[in-house]
C-alpha cells in the first residue's frame, strides 16, 4: 500500500500540467509573454475559449472516470461503463428529444434536465434488466438493448426532425466534444456533475462491501437498495450533465478504472478518486490531441475517444475471454 502513495499526487500533477497545456495549446499558442502583455486577443482566447474548455474537460473527464469506476464496482464487472452500456446514449436521447419537441429553447436548463432524465432512466433500466448478480452476458446484452433503443430513438428524431437546424443540433449530440464551449455551458453542467459526484462518492462503503458479493455486503449491514438508487441518481446526473454540454464521450469510464487498478489496487471504494483524476487527465489529453491533429476542421473528442476506446475494449475483452466462458 505504501508504495502506492505517490499515485494520487502524481496523477494530480499530471492533470495540472495537462490543464496548463490545454490553456496554452491550439491554433494560437499562448505564451507567457503574450499573457504578460495583456493584449485583448490573447485575453479573449484565454477567457472565452480555452479556460472554459479546460475546466469542462477536467469536470467531464473526472466525473466520467468516477462514474465508470462506480458502475464497475457496483456491477462487479470490469467491462461496465456508462458509454458501453448505453447510459450515455439514453442521456443523448433525452437531450435530442428536447430539441426535437422544440422545448430546448424555452430555458437553458431544459436540455440538460432532459439529458439527466435520460441518463437516470438508462441507469434504472440497466439495473432492472441486469439485476444485482449480473453476469457479463446479461450485462452486455442489457447494454446492447439500451443502446439500440436510444440510437433508434435518435435516428427517428433525426429523420423526422422539424428543421435543418434541429437535425444539425442532433448530430452534434452524437459526436461529443469540448469545442467552442463557454462559461454559460459550464455553469449549467457544473452543478449537475458536482451533485452527481457527491452522490457517487457517498457509495464508497457499499462498493467496498460488494467485493464480497451481494450476500456478503448485506451481511456487513449494507443497504443495497439505497446504494443502487443513489448510484442511479448520481451517475444519471453525471452522464446527463456532461452529455448535455459535451455530447457522448465514451470509454473514459472503461479505460481509466482499468489503468488505475494497477496503480492503487482493486478495492472499489479506493478506486473512485484516482479514477476521477485519471479521467480528467485522459479527457484533457484527448482534447489536446484533437487540437493538434492537422486538418481543416477539428475532429470531435468523442470520435477520438472511441477510436482509442474501442480497441482497448477489444483487448480487455480478449484478456478476460477465458474467465467469461
Amino acid at each position, binding site marked *: *500500500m505504501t508504495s502506492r502513495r505517490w499515485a494520487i499526487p502524481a496523477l494530480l500533477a499530471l492533470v495540472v500540467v495537462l490543464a496548463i497545456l490545454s490553456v496554452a495549446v491550439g491554433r494560437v499558442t499562448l505564451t507567457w509573454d503574450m499573457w504578460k502583455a495583456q493584449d485583448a486577443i490573447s485575453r479573449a482566447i484565454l477567457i472565452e475559449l480555452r479556460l472554459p474548455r479546460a475546466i469542462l474537460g477536467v469536470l467531464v473527464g473526472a466525473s466520467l472516470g468516477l462514474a465508470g469506476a462506480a458502475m464497475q464496482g457496483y456491477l*462487479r464487472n470490469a467491462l461496465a461503463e456508462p458509454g458501453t452500456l448505453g447510459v450515455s446514449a439514453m442521456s443523448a436521447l433525452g437531450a435530442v428529444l428536447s430539441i426535437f419537441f422544440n422545448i430546448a429553447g424555452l430555458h437553458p436548463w431544459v436540455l440538460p434536465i432532459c439529458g439527466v432524465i435520460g441518463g437516470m432512466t438508462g441507469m434504472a433500466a440497466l439495473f432492472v434488466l441486469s439485476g444485482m448478480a449480473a453476469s457479463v452476458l446479461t450485462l452486455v446484452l442489457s447494454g446492447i438493448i439500451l443502446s439500440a433503443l436510444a440510437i433508434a430513438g435518435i435516428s427517428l428524431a433525426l429523420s423526422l426532425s422539424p428543421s435543418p437546424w434541429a437535425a444539425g443540433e442532433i448530430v452534434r449530440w452524437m459526436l461529443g466534444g469540448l469545442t467552442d464551449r463557454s462559461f454559460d455551458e459550464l455553469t449549467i453542467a457544473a452543478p449537475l456533475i458536482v451533485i452527481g459526484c457527491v452522490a457517487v462518492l457517498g457509495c464508497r*462503503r457499499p462498493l*467496498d*462491501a*460488494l*467485493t*464480497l*458479493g*451481494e*450476500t*456478503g455486503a*448485506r*451481511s*456487513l*449491514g*449494507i*443497504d443495497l437498495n439505497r446504494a443502487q438508487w443513489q448510484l442511479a441518481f448520481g451517475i444519471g446526473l453525471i452522464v446527463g450533465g456532461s452529455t448535455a454540454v459535451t455530447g457522448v464521450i465514451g470509454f473514459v469510464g472503461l479505460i481509466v478504472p482499468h489503468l488505475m487498478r494497477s496503480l492503487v*489496487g*482493486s*478495492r*472499489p471504494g479506493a478506486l473512485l478518486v484516482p479514477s476521477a483524476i485519471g479521467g480528467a487527465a485522459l479527457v484533457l489529453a484527448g482534447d489536446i490531441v484533437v487540437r493538434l491533429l492537422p486538418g481543416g476542421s477539428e475532429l470531435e473528442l468523442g470520435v477520438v475517444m472511441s477510436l482509442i476506446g474501442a480497441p482497448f475494449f477489444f483487448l480487455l475483452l480478449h484478456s478476460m475471454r477465458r474467465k467469461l466462458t
Partner: protein
Amino acid sequence: MTRPASNLKISGLQFRRGSRVVLDAIDLQLQSGAVTAVLGPNGAGKSTLLSCIAGLLRPERGSIELDGTSLHSLAAMQRARRIAFLPQTPEIAWAVDVQTLIGLGRIPFQGISSDEQDRAAVARAMAETEVAQWADRPVTTLSGGERARVLLARVLAGEADWILADEPFTGLDPSHQFEAADLLRSAADQGSGVVLTIHDLTLAARIADRVIIIDDGRMVADGAPQDALTPQILRNVYNIDAQWLDGSNGTPPTIAIHGRATRV
C-alpha cells in the same frame, strides 16, 4: 480474551418461499461460547435458517431476539457488528490483497472504531488464522484452502458476538477442514457464539457442542452430538444406516456410514 455472554432466542419461526413453507415452528435458544451445528438433507432449510438469524431474510411469522431485542428492530449496521456471516460459496469480485479483503470485515465499524482499532482487529484475525504471510498477495492467487482461511479471517476481524457460517468446510480437503473447524472452535472458546451448517457427520460430532437437525423445514433433533446423531434419527432423516463409534483411549468419535438404509 473472552466476551460477555449473549443469547439468541428464536420462537415460532416460519419462512415461506411463495406457497412453499421452507421453515416452520422453529423454537431455539442459542448461547454464545458454544459451537452449534445445523444438519439436515439438502433443501431442508438449513441455509434459510442461518440467513434468518443473520437478519438477511425476514421470516413471515415468529421472532428472533438478540439479548432480548428484536433482531429486525436493530439497524443493519448495528446488527452486522453483533452477527458476522460467512455465506455459502463466498464471492470475491476483485483481485484485492489479503489484508484489504480481511479489512472488509471492519466495514460495520466505520465511523465507530478508530483506524488503529481496525488495524489491530485485522492483525489479530490474520495472526489467529496464520495468514499474515500473504498480507500483500492478491486473494485470487491463493489456493482454495488458503482462500477459505482468509475468508474466515474476514469474518473473525468483525469480532462479532455471533459467527454464522454456511457450510464453511465444503470444498476443503480433510486437513483444511480440521484447520477451519479448529479456528471456529477457538472462536467459540473465546466467547463467540458459532452456528454453522455442515454435512459431514463425523466432523459435526467432533466440533459441535450442540447439534440441531432439520428435516423438511422442521426441527427433528436438538441436543448434544451423541443424543442427536443417533442411528434412528439418521435413518429417518437421511435414509442411511449409520453408527456412532466412540473413539478408544480418548480419541474423538466417528460416525460410520454403512450405506443407504434397507427398507424392510
